[in-house]
């Protein structure tokens, strides 16, 4: 259960979609004109933002639709900046957070949540590790106590560590090593596309590194990164904010802050020409193709434009690439892609990032013929201005997608955005202003962004081929 979440960025409507937010049921979300611009009162997420004396960021968001509450603790430690000789350690450590703390022995945290009618998980991503619970709202205090207990200190034995090393190695096997297309492209692509070790190492971990981890590593990692001044706590759902804040203060307030290490230099050297790689997958039955472009800096004007380019090019069945590669030619059955695709979404990261698109194809189809069709579609947004109608549709899609993120997994998606905007931007209120940034994008900015960022000199191409021969490139 705990571990990477492998499903791709755009949350589909699965059974886990979540409780809605505050506004009383009304027939619309503020009128939307056909060009995508909004009129009238906009839908917004209620937010209270506080910082405790020890530096813990606390975000409160009330939603009384259903008597449940989401508690999410996000630590500002992702797999990017894990120790060099310990690839995969950020994720292994995530598992250790379920293995015992001061007042909760092994399995007791998990039982505490589930036997109180709740669900829980954790995940490790580029720039954070998170732990969350969705529980009946009258259990809020119980859960805050438990999360504070493990922020206060772990109680891990050598046996617990050995057990979770075996579990994590099985996780890597089931998700990567023993499965066709394992790690393609979400784990592979950063390793090919990026050059700075922080961005380009094997985040799941080399098996030897996972096996080599010891209790000193666990202690040192906890002491370095798991302090209140390196974390954000989100409490969202059926709460009274003042009461929730008092409980947060009561349980998290006494935890001392720690001195944080300087953030390493994550910057990537400039890329001046296209990179092409191929790898063999002995378990695969058909070839696959992925390509990535480096994304503009998060929340910059060009990034907003890029978010709309993503909608126009690859999101949904009206997108350029769906029409060109699926509908008109049958080169593939579906195209998937996005910013931070496979390990999150376009909002929840904080560093160099890729826009990646991937697809499966037939043995008879050359990758170059697919890339040629892709280039034709990308040329459309580089060579001319998109129409108002297309821009309007992209804005509507992005709004609908944002609402889906908010509701994802019984409201956990909303907690995720609030936590990331607090952790990375010190501004959870961004959740209510993010759409405004997209509305500012003009067709001209869209084109300029495409010309600069969707240039093949910024592209990495990865081919996956079934078979046993060594790669030709």
């Amino acid at each position, binding site marked *: 259960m705990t571990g990477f979440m492998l499903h791709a960025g755009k949350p589909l409507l699965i059974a886990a979609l979540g409780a809605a937010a505050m506004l009383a049921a009304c027939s619309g979300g503020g009128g939307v004109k056909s060009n995508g611009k909004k009129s009238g009162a906009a839908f917004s997420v209620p937010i209270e933002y506080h910082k405790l004396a020890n530096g813990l960021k606390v975000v409160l968001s009330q939603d009384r639709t*259903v008597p449940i509450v989401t508690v999410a603790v996000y630590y500002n430690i992702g797999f990017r900046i894990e120790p060099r000789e310990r690839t995969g350690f950020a994720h292994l450590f995530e598992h250790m957070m379920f293995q015992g703390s001061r007042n909760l022995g092994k399995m007791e945290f998990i039982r*505490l949540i589930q036997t109180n009618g709740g669900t829980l998980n954790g995940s490790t991503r580029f720039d954070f590790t998170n732990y969350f619970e969705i529980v009946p709202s009258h259990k809020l205090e119980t859960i805050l106590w438990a999360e504070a207990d493990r922020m206060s200190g772990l109680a891990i034995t050598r046996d617990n560590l050995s057990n979770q090393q075996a579990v994590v190695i099985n996780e890597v096997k*089931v998700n990567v090593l023993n499965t066709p297309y394992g790690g393609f492209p979400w784990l592979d692509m950063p390793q090919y596309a990026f050059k700075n070790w922080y961005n380009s190492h094997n985040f799941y971990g080399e098996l030897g590194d996972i096996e080599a981890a010891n209790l000193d590593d666990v202690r040192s990692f906890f002491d370095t990164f798991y302090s209140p001044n390196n974390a954000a706590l989100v409490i969202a759902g059926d709460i009274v904010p003042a009461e929730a804040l008092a409980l947060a203060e009561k349980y998290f307030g006494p935890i001392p802050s720690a001195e944080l290490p300087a953030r390493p230099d994550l910057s990537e050297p400039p890329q001046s020409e296209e990179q092409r790689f191929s790898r063999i997958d002995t378990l695969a039955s058909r070839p696959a193709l992925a390509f990535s472009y480096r994304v503009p800096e998060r929340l910059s004007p060009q990034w907003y434009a890029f978010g709309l380019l993503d909608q126009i090019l690859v999101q949904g*069945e009206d997108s350029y690439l769906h029409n060109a590669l699926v509908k008109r030619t049958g080169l593939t059955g579906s195209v998937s892609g996005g910013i931070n695709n496979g390990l999150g979404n376009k909002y929840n990261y904080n560093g160099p990032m890729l826009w990646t698109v991937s697809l499966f194809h037939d043995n008879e189809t050359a990758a170059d013929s697919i890339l040629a069709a892709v280039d034709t579609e990308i040329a459309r947004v580089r060579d001319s201005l998109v129409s108002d109608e297309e821009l309007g549709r992209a804005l509507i899609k992005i709004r609908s997608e944002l609402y889906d993120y908010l509701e994802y997994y019984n409201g956990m998606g909303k907690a995720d955005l609030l936590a990331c905007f607090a952790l990375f931007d010190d501004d959870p209120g961004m959740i209510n202003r993010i759409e405004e940034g997209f509305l500012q994008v003009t067709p001209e900015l869209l084109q300029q962004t495409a010309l600069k960022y969707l240039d093949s000199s910024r592209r990495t191409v990865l081919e996956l081929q079934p078979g046993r021969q060594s790669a030709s490139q």
Partner: protein
Amino acid sequence: MYKLIILAVTALCAMAVYALPGETPPAGGQPKKFELPPRRTFTLDNGLAVTLVPFGGTPKVAVELVIAAGNIDESASQVWLADLTGMMLEEGAAGMSSEQIARKLAGMGGQLDVGVGPDQTTLSADVLAEFGPEAVAILSEVVRAPMLPGSEIERLKNDLIRRASIQSSRAQTQALEKFREVLYGDHPYGRVFPAEGILQAFTLRDVKDFYDNNFGAARARLYVAGVFDQEAMEASIRQSFSGWADGPAPSANLPAPESRREVYLVSRPGAIQSSIYMGLPTIGPTNPDWLALNVTNFLLGGMFASRITANIREDKGYTYSPRSSISVRRGDAYWAQRADVTTEFTGAALKEIFFEIDRLQGEPPPAGELQGVQNYAAGRFVLQNSSRAGIIGMLAYLDLHGLPISYLENYTENVMKITPEQVQAAAKNYIRDQQMTIVVVGDSASIAGELGAFGPVMQ
């Protein structure tokens, strides 16, 4: 008028059972009442039943049309014809091309999703609130007047050939395929993947016949959940769907699955894990013991804190993702435990799984452990009824199995009544070791020898 469901999640469970060093967790407050969202149901003259559920505050609305048509309606030479028909439904309707439909729905913040399953096909769209009635109109045109253009069929057949090839290369799917073949034999549920030749042979005529024989208002139900204007929605539904012919009655091709204690080894040379899929046919939601079996399943292997997971993952470290579940279709169900285990622990993992099944059959669970599982089931029920898709899913589940709304209204109360003895009885009666079909996909050179201890090995 809708009965209140009390979240009987009590404070005393976990704390009393698991002795903790030092501090104990605070109990929290008083449980709150959980109410099913109100709903309105009406039926059109052609027999189409409609359920509307205003829910939540996020300005989106989900529209889902569920049709009793799926793989169950295929003959042996038609495997995945239901899937091809579903794909063809997306290729234009009522004079609109598929591109036009895609653009229209994208302009509402949604898209057309057609899903084909063993006994149901669903057409759905999840759009911004103000576009709900328009989305209903488009869905109705797609299902009532599809163009089914012959120009697209070769491309879609090739997509299905590629999809079958890729899906069947996964060890877990290979295990599922063998398991279903053993249980269901010649019934459509026994045919998970088609031979390539079957897909290649499909013609437009086959698709049109499948559509004519299986689609119509008499086989369909429409669900709407989320934020919408009820009057405009109902008007759009009546206008859009009233003209739909009632069509053929649902087929009654229910399976009679069989299972014996046998081990099926599917060879995957060099595999570093063995993919286990073991189980047997069991009772479905209309059986009086159903809720007891559900709670039994959670306790045994269906939640993180379950016995099998605690054993083979958190104690032994044999696997990352063990899980037991009850897989349900209309008039049919099976229980199964799945796990991908390190190859060298294949036999050891099977031994521990049977150990946990036997232990539960041998003695009733402690009351405290059961209480925790009952709380989990009650909490999970609230989460399942707390989203547009979840609400529609639960109502469609009732309709599929012919259950009354009281199933939902009394769910928590009935779950809380289950006794340790009922759980033990459910394990004995419905998770019978001696009828367990065991499928293992793995490196036969490494594991064939140890599998004989678990039953006759069929290669």
